[in-house]
């Protein structure tokens, strides 16, 4: 019986693929950030342990989630707040509100209210700041875009959560960490709108910025590798209808290519998740594939773009990449997992496994296209996982 880790590694070509691995991307979005799934997995622990980064307690939640769902990877072994930050923060629940208290000597803001996520859950956010007026030259880029060295990340305890997850689950689960893809990371520094405008207004500056964020990403990758992570997940939203394939090729590709090579040299699998990429952006997809990430995952077909899995398999095969790049499934998380009947769910799981195994040749990991919705029940997720095991088991 293969472990989850072995299943995924086999799907990446490191072994003989027998069972189709089954995973859930962005598990933390719905599972950790909304009370519905939190209650399923936390077994009475208060929600604010997430805010505090209480590592021992969070590991218990993760363990319950792994036991109940049985996915083949442990998602989100990511960089966390520093050890110093965790030491200097405490939560004070009162009848009126829950306060986060900063006990750092001399802290300017020493207490603020934190709120429980709404029933529908929250999602990852990015800072919506506009530094376009500040970052105008290459010198500004170097001054403001700070590259924290891998050694520093580790010394400061920012990799403590990664280390804990690897220690607890690393022997049986594929440990996956998220990185900021260079283009996407540019948003963090000058805001999404200004950065999109730079593609036309000042591509040279944008390229300098993206090169710099790639340097920061590479340090994260090095830190993850030192901690024993198995792979990195790179989300990119400067794709699809946002920019043209030519803009991606000129500005994003060189920096992303460096990140991919860096991960691969350190033995990590690089899974690329570009959003909005469908048949209309095939030239861009081919540009992405030319970089040879270890895995490619496209969202399910949605408004305005078609990402049919058979089409994906055909594009990869036409480029002769079926023995180099692992394809990820994209079961529709709303229309099939949440809304579909049991028959529809089974039909789609079976169809995608058939595409992955027979049309594509076996380098395939079953996944949903987008984060699981808060309206989806735990029972439904278990049903989905069981169907993958049923149809994706040994031939």
């Amino acid at each position: 019986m293969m472990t989850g880790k072995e299943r995924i590694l086999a799907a990446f070509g490191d072994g003989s693929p027998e069972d189709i691995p089954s995973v859930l991307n962005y598990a933390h979005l719905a599972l950790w950030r909304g009370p519905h799934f939190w209650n399923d997995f936390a077994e009475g622990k208060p929600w604010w342990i997430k805010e505090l980064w209480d590592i021992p307690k969070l590991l218990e939640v993760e363990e319950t989630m792994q036991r109940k769902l049985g996915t083949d990877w442990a998602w989100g072994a990511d960089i966390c707040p520093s050890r110093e930050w965790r030491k200097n923060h405490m939560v004070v629940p009162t009848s009126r509100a829950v306060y986060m208290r900063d006990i750092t000597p001399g802290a300017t803001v020493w207490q603020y209210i934190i709120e429980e996520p709404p029933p529908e859950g929250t999602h990852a956010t990015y800072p919506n700041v506009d530094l376009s007026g500040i970052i105008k030259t290459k010198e500004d880029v170097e001054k403001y875009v700070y590259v924290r060295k891998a050694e520093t990340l580790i010394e400061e305890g920012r990799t403590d959560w990664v280390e804990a997850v690897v220690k607890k689950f690393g022997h049986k689960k594929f440990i996956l960490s998220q990185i900021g893809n260079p283009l996407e990371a540019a948003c963090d520094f000058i805001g999404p709108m200004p950065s999109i405008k730079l593609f036309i207004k000042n591509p040279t500056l944008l390229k300098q910025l993206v090169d710099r964020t790639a340097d920061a990403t590479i340090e994260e990758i090095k830190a993850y590798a030192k901690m024993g992570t198995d792979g990195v997940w790179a989300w990119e939203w400067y794709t699809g209808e946002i920019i043209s394939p030519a803009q991606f090729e000129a500005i994003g590709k060189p920096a992303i290519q460096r990140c991919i090579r860096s991960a691969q040299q350190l033995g990590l699998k690089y899974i690329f998740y570009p959003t909005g990429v469908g048949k209309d952006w095939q030239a861009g997809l081919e540009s992405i594939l030319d970089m040879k990430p270890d895995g490619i995952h496209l969202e399910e077909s949605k408004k305005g773009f078609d990402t049919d899995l058979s089409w994906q398999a055909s594009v990869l095969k036409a480029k002769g990449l079926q023995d180099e790049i692992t394809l990820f499934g994209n079961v529709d998380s709303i229309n099939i997992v949440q809304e579909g009947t049991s028959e529809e769910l089974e039909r789609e799981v079976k169809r995608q496994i058939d595409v992955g195994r027979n049309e594509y040749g076996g380098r395939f990991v079953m996944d949903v296209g987008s984060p699981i919705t808060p309206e989806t029940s735990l029972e439904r997720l278990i049903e989905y996982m069981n169907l993958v095991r049923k149809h994706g088991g040994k031939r």
Partner: protein
Amino acid sequence: MRACVHRENHKSHGVMKVKNLEKGETSMSEKEIIDGLRKAVVNYDDEGVKKLANEVIEKGFDPLKAIQEGLVKGINEVGEKFGAKKIFLSELMIAAEACLAGMDILKPQVTATVRANVKTVGKVVMGTVYGDIHFIGKNLVATMLEANGFEVYDIGEDQPVEAFVNKAKEVDADIVGASALTTTTRLEQEKLVKAFREQGLKTKIMIGGAVVDDAWAERVGADGYAKNLQEAVNLAKQFMERK
């Protein structure tokens, strides 16, 4: 075009303007300037738009005509190209910015009399729902609606239902546009519709975002769903025509 030295007396909305053109200066006709505005928007040339918009004022041409036949025509052309997937969001955003830059210059020149005679197409409150911080689509729809004569009140992102309701009441909105981009936040659209209905507000509600469709709009009881920018404008116009 001809080089000339002359005095121009243009009566524009009750304002007499006099312009001396130096010898050798080329004078563009109103038609040429307005078409230049359209082309500048289509070519993402915000500096060009600003220059021509200022020229409209300097020469005493009709600012409203310049907006409607220059800027709006241009941004609608760009919107259609985007809808047809001939251009990308980065280009659309720059064009929208150029259009707004021109609006900023020309709008204040449209006199109160003219404004009074030009009926606002309708009032729209736009926002992204609670828990969702995506704004690109919402901003672009707001821009397109504004360019098409709607009075738009953009309440921003991550907005609770009450914020939509309060703003709609405050401005007596005809339409509310609520955007949701993630699978985890679209439920807020359902809450929004429910709140408007419970309070007996007649405001039309249109929804948009990558994770919603006609079926979702129907399910939550929204008045309509717009797949893209052009559809959003058309839907808003339809709402107003049916009023």
